[in-house]
């Protein structure tokens, strides 16, 4: 039994179009079309000029993140039955559009790379693996699951206003993921790396990132944790310094 559904999709092909425009589709869906991605593939059968990214189609690769009825999410795990019609689909905001729903994520990954998202450990490689206690391993829960779809970062106004300077929730959560890793030895450098007034501190806790994350993660908590750790580290550094003395009386 076919079911009709209305869509309004952002279209822009820079080679042809002067300006982006919204194109309406009224599509007959089949019973097996359960998720938004299924509907998009159905649309593509009728209009193969529509461009979008997709890969795993089960919420693991993070390719088909887009703005769905005003909220960022993954098309492949968004149920059609829960969407209001017409379903308005736009590319993720705050990044340059390459074509239709495909955005250029270079800036996003530059920020990701800038937090050095890999284990830094100068000890000689052990014969097997670097061991970790279950408690230490548990500290990475809620962060390692990030699939880097970009939904959080592109829904963050601080990233819209300062895309070149603010690392964004996704990058900062990965910074925290490696700061919290018991096997990592570069905690000091990682915290220092986020010191300027923009990279970390542009976060004003509006929590759009938490609201949209398709994996139900909490980048805001990760950012708050980095801020706390930076204070702790600064306190330790201050304690280590010899006390200042004025007229022989130690102050501070």
């Amino acid at each position, binding site marked *: 039994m076919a079911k009709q559904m209305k869509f309004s999709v952002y279209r822009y092909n820079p080679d042809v179009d002067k300006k982006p425009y919204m194109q309406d589709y009224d599509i007959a869906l089949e019973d097996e079309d359960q998720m938004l991605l299924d509907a998009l593939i159905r649309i593509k059968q009728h209009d193969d000029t529509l461009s979008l990214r997709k890969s795993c189609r089960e919420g693991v690769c993070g390719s088909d993140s887009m703005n769905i009825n005003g909220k960022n999410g993954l098309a492949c795990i968004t149920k059609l039955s829960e969407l209001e019609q017409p379903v308005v689909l736009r590319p993720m905001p705050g990044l340059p559009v390459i074509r239709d729903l495909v955005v250029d994520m270079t800036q996003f990954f530059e920020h990701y790379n800038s937090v050095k998202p890999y284990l830094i450990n100068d000890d000689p490689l052990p014969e097997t693996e670097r061991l970790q206690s279950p408690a230490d391993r548990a500290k990475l829960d809620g962060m390692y699951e990030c699939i880097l779809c970009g939904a959080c970062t592109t829904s963050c*106004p*601080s990233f819209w*206003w*300062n895309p070149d300077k603010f690392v964004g929730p996704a990058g900062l959560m990965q910074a925290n993921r490696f700061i919290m890793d018991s096997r990592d030895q570069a905690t000091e450098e990682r915290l220092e790396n*986020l*010191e*300027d*007034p*923009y*990279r*970390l*501190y*542009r976060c*004003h806790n509006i929590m759009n990132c938490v609201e949209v994350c398709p994996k139900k993660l909490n980048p805001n908590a990760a950012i708050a944790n980095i*801020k706390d750790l*930076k*204070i702790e580290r*600064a*306190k330790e550094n*201050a304690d280590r310094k010899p006390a200042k003395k004025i007229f022989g009386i130690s102050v*501070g």
Partner: protein
Amino acid sequence: MLIQLLTHQYPGMRLWLSQRLTAVVMAIYILLLVVLLLIVQPFGHTTWQQNYAAWIEFVSPVWFRLATLLFSMSLFMHAWLGVADVLKDYVFNKVLRGYMQLAVDIALVLYLFWLVYILWNV
């Protein structure tokens, strides 16, 4: 002491931490003010002259004026940091941002003088 950490060594944390610390000062003052107002109750007398006298008595002690001054300085600093953040977010022309920041700075300094004048003229 957290105040020790407000150095140029931590340009980002300094701004963020200052805003939190000034917020703590303001919260403590407001809490104490509400409690004091409830205990002393410098209002609700039959004539306005009595109310006025009670109010003057309430605000006159030097420690109260100094506490109010400390609160207001925290408020101005908090506001300065907040406005600087907003300008950093929304005004990308550095010259324009500089002038807007300067206007805010001047207003806040004038407020401070005005406040001192009010506090020591009741």
